[in-house]
């Protein structure tokens, strides 16, 4: 195996054209590819970062935003450790769709998943969603919030690094009091995915 201590899966979701692929490219390759075509299905990138001197491997799943790929992308929600929900600050409809996305996340993702709301394209002049609106929305739904620009490389590194730090803390907390989580699902949504799958250790 490669030399890393933690492996986390990060899944990006959000409407088509909000810049998910650009965010991932900017983070993993340092590029901003203009004229990026629509993502087909799911793309898969890996970047290893270092947090507190420990190697953390981030497996980033960049999903297609278009409706017809939904059944492919939905299958990735469950194994995600972090879900990044992206909208375009210069495009009201992408913000209006957020509740739908949250419903989808509720339905398919593990309920303990780390959720981050990201308003992308801060470089654009024609902002439609003020920052505080996004912030409010995130707070109301218990999400982290960040505004980014993949084009200007603003906050992109920070976004992924904070996710890595947060997930690592979670993983470490889980290590300490290891009580038996043998109780099965109590209602439909709660699952006992936790201890086994949450961090695949190398």
């Amino acid at each position, binding site marked *: 195996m490669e030399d890393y201590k933690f492996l986390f899966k990060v899944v990006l979701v959000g409407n088509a054209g909000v810049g998910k692929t650009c965010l991932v490219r900017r983070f993993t390759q340092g590029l901003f590819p203009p004229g990026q075509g629509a993502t087909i299905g799911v793309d898969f990138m890996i970047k290893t970062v270092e947090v507190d001197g420990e190697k953390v491997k981030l497996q980033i799943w960049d999903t297609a935003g278009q409706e017809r790929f939904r*059944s*492919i992308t939905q*299958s990735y929600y469950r194994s995600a450790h972090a879900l990044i929900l992206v909208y375009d600050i210069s495009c009201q409809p992408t913000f209006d769709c957020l509740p739908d996305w949250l419903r989808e996340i509720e339905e398919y993702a593990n309920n303990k998943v780390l959720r981050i709301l990201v308003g992308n394209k801060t470089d654009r002049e024609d902002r439609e969603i003020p920052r505080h609106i996004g912030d409010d929305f995130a707070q109301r739904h218990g999400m982290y919030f960040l505004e980014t620009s993949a084009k200007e490389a603003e906050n992109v590194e920070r976004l992924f690094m904070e996710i890595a730090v947060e997930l690592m803390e979670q993983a470490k907390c889980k290590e300490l009091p290891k009580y038996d989580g043998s109780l099965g699902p109590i209602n439909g949504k709660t699952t006992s995915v936790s201890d086994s799958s949450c961090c695949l250790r190398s």
Partner: protein
Amino acid sequence: MSLSLLLEKYDVSTEEGLEKALNEIEKEEEEVEEALSNVLSRACAIEGRLRTTSLAYARLADVRSDAQAAGDMVQRTADLARDSRVAECQQRVHDLIDLQLCSAGVEAAIRGHDYETGAAHVARFLAMDPGSVAAARARGAADPREAMNRAAQTLRDNLVKKFEEAAKKDDEASVERLFKLFPQIGRADEGVDLLARYLAKHVESSIRRNCTIANPSAEGAVFADALTRLLEAGGAVVERARTLAAGAAPARLSRALAIIQPVICGNARRLSSEMRTTRGLSAASADPRRAQYPPEPRTLEPTLDELALMHSRIYLYFAFLRRKAETDASSLEEPAKTKAVVTVHKIIAESDLMRTAQDLLGHYLTLERYFLEESVSKALKMATPQPGVTCSSLVDDVYFIARKCIRRGLSTGSVDGACAVLNEAATQLEREVAAALRRWVRSAPSDPLPLPLPPGTPANAPLDLPALPAATATLLGQRLNRDVEAQKALFLAHMSEADAGAEWAERLAAEACADAEPLFRASPAASAEGERAKFQSCAAGLAAAATAFRTAHDLALAGLCAALKPRAAAWADAIASPTVEDENEAGDALPAALDELAASAHAELPSRAADALLVSVVADITTRAEGRLLLHVYDREGGLAVERRTRRLAAWAGGGAGGARERCARLTQAASLLALERLAHVPDALRPTPRLAVHEVKDILARSGESEDGIGIEIGPRTGIDEIEDEKRVQYQDGDIPVLDINDIPLLIGTHHETPPMSVRVAQNWFKRFQSGDFDVKDEPRSGRPVTEKVNAILENVGQDRHISFYDIAEELRINHKNFSTLFKKDFATTERSAYARTVITRLIITQFEECAAFKMTWHLNTAVWETILGPCGKRDKFSNVKFP
């Protein structure tokens, strides 16, 4: 003639002879003289000639230099001639001649419908240097360009007209003949367009003929078949366009494809929407879970297979196009080649057929997920434990389902699709199957594996039957017995299943990765590696499922060990008993009992689990026996008997369960201490390494009747003893709570009591309810039982922080308090009674508290009550972040 010869010939001695000789000599002299004069005269002539020659030579040198000059001049002229495009002029002369011919010829050819000739003329004209034409004009000739252009235009119009006529008549030969002329008149692109349009129309009609579903509701994959025919026709027509164009107008596949492709796309879309309507997959009710009447999963299989097949056909078609694009562009130079290939890829990516494929895949995946979920839940339903069922094929069934789905996912030809199916399968295995197994194995039945009790122990009746007529009681007993047996068998079956599940989940992942290799090979080389990594990462989801199965298995193992605890405890009692029994008979009892356990464990369980179980049971016996040693007083005989028994156990552990031998060392040493004749031998008893701490040694020695005065003895400094002291703590510690499990209940409730207040079964049910997270003592289904109120009363007392004595609780629940005190004798002395009583009763209730709190269960106790309850546990930190309702 030489003189000597002459002298010999003639006799010079004689006069006559001399005379003759003289004559002879004279004659010769004359001859010589004559010859000489001859030569002299010739010399004169030669001299004259030489003079002439030298004269001529001088003249020749002049000629040579002249010739040189002339040659240079010719050379220069030639060079000059080349520079001044003499050749071009010649060409131009030819051109001019041809031009005349062409402009005259083309019209004649058109008039004569000889398009080949006409086209050849135009081709000739187009190949001409524009300069020639200009030159011709300059020389005053009529401008031929206009005439030629006009002629070419007419020719084109005629060709187009002819082509269309031929196309209408479906005259393939003419079509091909006419198509070849277009490149000649410089309109290759137009020709390709026309050809492609013709072919598109052609294929359209043939598709309409061949690929219409006459009977959509027919059995079999009619739509997939139709789509296959459609794509085959499409592939054939593209290939035809390519081969036709390759000769005349090479590398124009993308142009032809742009025209032909929409026809195929349109028909494929028509087919796919027809299929969706027929198969009940309209977009609105794409998710069968939301349908009014959810379909039976099994009936979906043909549709699923068909969808996967259709999708894979489309992928094959695209692969074919990509391959043809490569071939088509192979004649081009590098940048143009890449461009041509990229254009084709772009047409593919943007084609409606691609979207159709994606839609099909979307439908397929939605349906496949439904199929997987429903099939798994059906398998779960069938496998849900029922009375009398002894075996379970859940993992078999689910493995079969998952494998089928994954293979079908792979058969779509799409890595993304296969990945999604893998993800879903892993979810189902982990979330449903492993979780169900975990639920089922959480509470082990009592006596799941035979471990005979020590001889002379009264066997507890497992259930107390009400007084019934003898016959009914026997019958009932039999039935109950059968159910209990079935329950045991099922538990063991589930445990083995959990083990198999882990293995099979991993096998599924490995199989999937192997089966997916052809997909990676088919995908473009640049992305193959990424696709493989993606797929393998999804397959790793199955490894997570395997972990979940292992957890279930470990849980079952723990349950099994716990269930054997009462019997282990009985054996511990037997080992520690100070009575001396008949050596041979009793000595063999424990190894025999353990042998029986080992045999059935190995028969019923995977060998790894069986070994772990045996080690754990032996460890349990030894730990308990060690605790029991402190409850008795031993005389010498008794001590020896204990030692004998422990050695037997150790010997068995050495042979029967490898890992358990180590566990016996402490007990063996303790027993040796009891059997000591003299205190001086204490160090010998602790060989080879002392496992007991100093104070433990003292405690044990205090139990030996004959060495009561030995409490103060010095064992002497022993290396390692103090370190061991910290590690090897006895089970109970101050402030800690003894962990109860269901098998401790009979001990808590007085089974030896003449009139038990609450049957073991009732207590166990209570315990189970608490364990499963149901703490609602007020809403007990069969309410009205006195015990409910009593527990409430106790809890109320606890809530008011009254000091309840141990006897109070025992009194309240009418529990045999003697049992309490024996069980917790050691701690009882050091712990405050009321606190202990609280601990015990609370522990009964909150054994599984952690999980319940974690899952935010609500129950009807107020915070104060919980605070009180948790206070003495000394474990508040563990719950500090739990909010009480």
